[in-house]
């Protein structure tokens, strides 16, 4: 259960930066390699218009896709990682956190906020893969816990968008216990009868899969995402066999009964608000 980098390149860009970018700028689709204009990308919710590949995007982009007029109030934005174990690998964890924060403009691997989607109240917690592989440390756990508290107090539906390699090794057992913490909070949310939507995006693995990501009233996923508990490399090394084609994709997980449906990002807002209306 560890964060890791995937070979496949993902592109992550905050919406606001994109909006300011001149119209002529473009990125290549990592899948079909066709050029995608920035304006078109925003319009298409960062889905390739040629091959439907879902580009890897950050929390700001998801918030802009979900919330009406991109209007939301962020919760607990000022929580940052401490370094309770004085962890040092190739560099001290404390230094790494500061460096990553400077590079990404993020305080940690999760943003929480509330707003309206199609006029309905929703609290959203969304992971940022750019921050140490979207790994779950104390900040991720605490922000989810507080967002759930907020949901329970105001009786507002709750949604988590997962995008994570799993636990944050530099917080070791502190990171592990965030699995119990978030799951316990979700038990309270469930007891209060408040809807919880879990959206799994590329990639969702390790401790995140083994806690909040799999505990939705509905578990939904973007197409083609890597979803699993153990990483494919670990499984391959353990069983010493090649993995079947399509193993641990959203489609595979749906087929095995652990997802309710797969949602195209361009329909995400409609599907989520439809579900909330149906259960409210």
């Amino acid at each position, binding site marked *: *259960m*560890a964060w*890791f980098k995937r070979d496949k390149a993902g592109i992550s860009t905050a919406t606001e930066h994109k909006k300011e970018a001149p119209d002529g700028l473009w990125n290549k689709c990592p899948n079909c390699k066709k050029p995608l204009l920035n304006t078109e990308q925003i319009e298409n919710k960062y889905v390739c218009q040629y091959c439907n590949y879902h580009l890897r995007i950050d929390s700001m982009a998801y918030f802009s896709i979900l919330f009406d007029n991109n209007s939301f109030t962020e919760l*607990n934005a*000022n*929580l*940052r990682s*401490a370094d*309770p*174990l004085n962890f040092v*690998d*190739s560099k001290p964890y404390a230094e790494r956190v500061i460096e990553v924060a400077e590079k990404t403009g993020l305080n940690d691997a999760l943003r929480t906020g509330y707003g309206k989607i199609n006029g309905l109240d929703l609290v959203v917690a969304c992971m940022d893969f750019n921050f140490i592989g979207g790994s779950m*440390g*104390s*900040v991720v*756990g*605490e922000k989810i*816990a507080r967002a759930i508290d907020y949901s329970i107090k105001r009786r507002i539906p709750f949604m988590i968008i997962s995008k994570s390699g799993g*636990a944050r*090794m530099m*917080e*070791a*057992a*502190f*990171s*592990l*216990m*965030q*699995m*119990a*913490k978030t*799951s*316990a*909070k*979700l*038990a*309270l949310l*469930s*007891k209060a009868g408040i809807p919880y939507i879990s959206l799994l995006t590329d990639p969702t693995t*390790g*401790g995140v*899969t*083994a*806690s909040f*990501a*799999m*505990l939705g009233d509905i578990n939904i996923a973007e197409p083609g995402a890597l979803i*699993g*508990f*153990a*990483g494919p490399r670990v*499984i391959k090394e*353990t*069983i010493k*066999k090649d993995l*079947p084609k399509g*193993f641990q994709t959203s489609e595979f997980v749906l087929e*095995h*009964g*652990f997802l309710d449906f797969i949602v195209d990002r361009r329909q995400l807002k409609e599907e989520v608000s439809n579900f909330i209306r149906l259960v409210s």
Partner: protein
Amino acid sequence: METIFDFEKPIADLQLQIDKVKQVAEKTKVDMSATLLELDEKLEAKRKEIYENMTGWQNVQMSRHPSRPQTLDYIQMMCENFIELHGDRTVGDDKAIVGGFATIGEHSVMIIGHQKGKNTKERQYRNFGMANPEGYRKALRLMKLAEKFNKPVVTLIDTIGAFPGIEAEERGQGEAIARNLLEMSVLQVPIICIVIGEGASGGALGIGVGDRVYMLEHTWYSVISPESCSSILWRSWDYKEKAAESLKLTSENMLTNKLIDGVIPEPLGGAHNNPEKMAATIKEQVLTDIKDLLKKKKDKLVEERIDKFCHMGVVIEGS
């Protein structure tokens, strides 16, 4: 064959020296009791010095000692009237997790634990204590049974992790563990969890959410094994000792960081040196806690359990 770790070598050397002196004394009929007494004292001091100052990695080694007692040993030593219950009622019976009703002292309890196996054949049969989703679902089924009949749950944790395999993924390893975390956090009966060997990641935590969580003195509990941590962070298996230190995975570290509720001391030299004594110590702790926890109102019990886990973590707040 006896297993002696590198760090135990000074003890083994002294023991060898003592044996030699004894042989000589016997052969020559010379009184060597003074020398022997001195050596015995030296041995005792050495044992204390070594076993009371073990590093992270040494504790990892000890937790894997081939003669270390396992779940079924403890059930046999601590419990009576054990009825093993099998199967998750969906897919099969996972041999890596065992469980059933038994009595401890005067209490009827549900006792569940990882079972690694003691020889090659057993280890294969038990999948080295690495459970598939069925194992976690069996454990949950048994915990729900305990809840139905208002009996406390005792779990014994000893795993290097949930099994990373194709079928495990197909049958939802992540969902199985996640479900247990959620259900255990609100189970309406007392839960006591004890790490008796290795406590690796979600595979351990999957039966590890309790009102009281303990580690035996020479065990480890963390998010990843030191070997895997070494290979990921340092791209080599050679930094496992360094990783073991960095992860702060010992019972002492875990207690200091308030991630467990207590450390249960082991007989000097480890649980395998005196399994009966170890079992008696665990039994005493379990009985004390059951008595204490059964006094609590159910709502209060669950509330305190959730609160405890919700307080875990360290963050900086402020701009």
